[in-house]
């Protein structure tokens, strides 16, 4: 059973705590994505799972066994690096087979595995070439092939697509997803790209400043972000965050200069409280009878949809409208409606989610 358990794992560099005590459970065969901005600790966490760094505290268990003291090669895991880390002086075949050679596998078995991985990833015509002769996408596949031939119980990916151009990235994302479906190996995948995270993850771990902000399926995390950070991190354009206040009765949320928005359920506990109101760009719908009046400052047309940058009172927000032509012009005022179910409330200071 290739499960992964992290118990209060933390990492300190000198006096700086780079990763606060973190716990996580990954089920056998699950594809988990660690996502967050640079410096949030996701790579550090991955490297500790790999054994390339030792934790300052806590325990890491793979398949039920504590691996804290084990060398990377003893943990039965394989890793795909951001810059591929292929041996430049070895051919593709030798790159794929190096780990197996070190383990003294039989030649026939090595050939079998390399053939199998090469076929899976379309590398057969490239086996005699050196990495310098390959394109970025090909090198990426060799890096993945090197991980696959090991037939490990855990795959680790460290931002593998960030060095590829956008088009290749989309293509490789699909390949990785298909590979996981095919092989079913437990996978921990690190990225700063929320699109990769949303599309690949069975479960997402959103991290910031060395701590986990939220764990959940992509749908859960998108629909119910646990903090303003998570809310602002996922989705493009990000969720609009407006300074607001809950009404004295706890029934409405008030944004300065604008009509009160009714909450889906009264929240007497929050009465009068200063909050941050979160509204997804697609939640603001133009409606002739809309409750809010906003001024259009800028219109961005993306072909199949439009982004409207508008002023709401003294604050700004972005609307996303699925339309190809706009009846509006910059400078127009516009009335919009917001469904009460589309309201997200966060504490104005801590950013933590509040019931709404």
């Amino acid at each position: 059973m290739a499960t992964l358990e992290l118990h209060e794992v933390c990492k300190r560099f000198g006096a700086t705590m780079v990763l606060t005590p973190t716990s996580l459970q990954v089920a056998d065969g699950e594809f988990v994505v660690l996502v967050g901005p640079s410096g949030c600790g996701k790579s550090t966490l991955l490297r500790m799972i790999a054994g390339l760094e030792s934790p300052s505290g806590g325990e890491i268990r793979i398949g039920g066994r504590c691996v804290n003291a084990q060398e990377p090669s003893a943990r039965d895991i394989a890793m795909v690096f951001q810059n591929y880390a292929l041996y430049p002086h070895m051919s593709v075949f030798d790159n794929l087979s190096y780990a197996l050679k070190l383990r003294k596998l039989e030649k026939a078995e090595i050939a079998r595995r390399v053939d199998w991985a090469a076929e899976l990833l379309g590398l057969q015509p490239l086996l005699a070439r050196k990495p310098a002769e390959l394109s970025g996408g090909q090198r990426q596949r060799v890096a993945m092939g090197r991980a696959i031939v090991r037939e490990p119980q855990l795959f680790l990916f460290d931002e593998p697509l960030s060095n590829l151009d956008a088009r290749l990235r989309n293509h490789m994302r699909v390949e990785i997803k298909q590979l996981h479906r095919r092989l079913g190996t437990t996978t921990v995948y690190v990225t700063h790209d929320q699109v990769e995270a949303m599309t690949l993850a069975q479960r997402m771990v959103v991290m910031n400043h060395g701590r986990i902000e939220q764990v959940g399926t992509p749908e859960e995390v998108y629909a119910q972000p646990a903090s303003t950070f998570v809310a602002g991190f996922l989705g493009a354009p990000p969720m609009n965050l407006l300074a607001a206040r809950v009404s004295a009765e706890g029934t409405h949320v008030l944004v300065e200069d604008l009509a009160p928005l009714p909450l889906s359920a009264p929240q007497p506990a929050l009465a009068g409280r200063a909050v941050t109101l979160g509204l997804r760009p697609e939640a603001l719908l133009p409606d002739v009878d809309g409750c809010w009046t906003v001024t259009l400052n800028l219109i961005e047309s993306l072909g199949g949809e439009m982004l409207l940058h508008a002023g709401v009172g003294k604050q700004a927000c972005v609307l996303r409208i699925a339309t190809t032509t706009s009846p509006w012009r910059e400078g127009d005022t516009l009335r919009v409606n917001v469904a009460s179910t589309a309201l997200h409330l966060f504490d104005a200071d801590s950013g933590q989610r509040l019931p709404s």
Partner: protein
Amino acid sequence: MKRQWLRRSVLLLLALLLALPLYAALIAASHAPGDLLGRLPWLPGNRLLHNLHTVLDAGLPGSPSVLRMLGNSLVMALGIALGKLTLATLSAYAVVYFRFPLRRTAFVLILSSLMLPLEVRFYPTFQVSAGLHLLNSYGVLIVPLIASATATFLLRQFFASMPPSLLDAARMDGAGPLQFFLHSALPLARTPLAALFVLEFVYGWNQYLWPLLTTTDARYATVVMGMQGLINAGTSFALPRWDLVMTTALLALLPPLLVLLLAQRWFIRGLTDIEK
């Protein structure tokens, strides 16, 4: 266009002028000694092969066998070059890829040898070598010269410039320190090693002071160190044998020159690039 041709002609002239000492030696080496008295001939003669034969067979009267000296020079140069590279590679690898107490001290210690070139410490080092009964051997010609801060420093910089993820990947693959050294670090260091080999071979071959001091036995004399003695021997006759002396000089300068010319391209690159 015309300026380029003018420039090229001038440069060519300068190059030829600078090559004059070499050319004069060539003329001397290819004539009979009698032809060299009075005015020097302008063109090379036809006795080069004959002189080579004489020098390599009989040598100069009153001096050790030139063939033997050339052999000793080769042994010394190869010994020094290979010795320096081996020691420097091992040291650089240890310092870059390991963490251990006093690591920095060890590196500083090695760097400190930069402050002690041979010319500065030759007398006490001679005393130490004499005390160890090392004089008059290949050992004394080679060993005191094979610590090299420059080579260690350059290789250290090279190893440090390799992407760290390569080591990560090797560790994940299960490679231990020696395996990583043999399978990856060493093969990838081919270019700087080749450049350094050229540098150190030339350095080793061209040693003068140290072999002069430490070999009184003619069996261990090297050809560069023996130059003054050869000139004395050659000119001690009524008919000075500049032909033979210059033939020997040409033989003495040929190996490092060849090595430099053959390796010129990546030698220059290695010397000036890697130092950055």
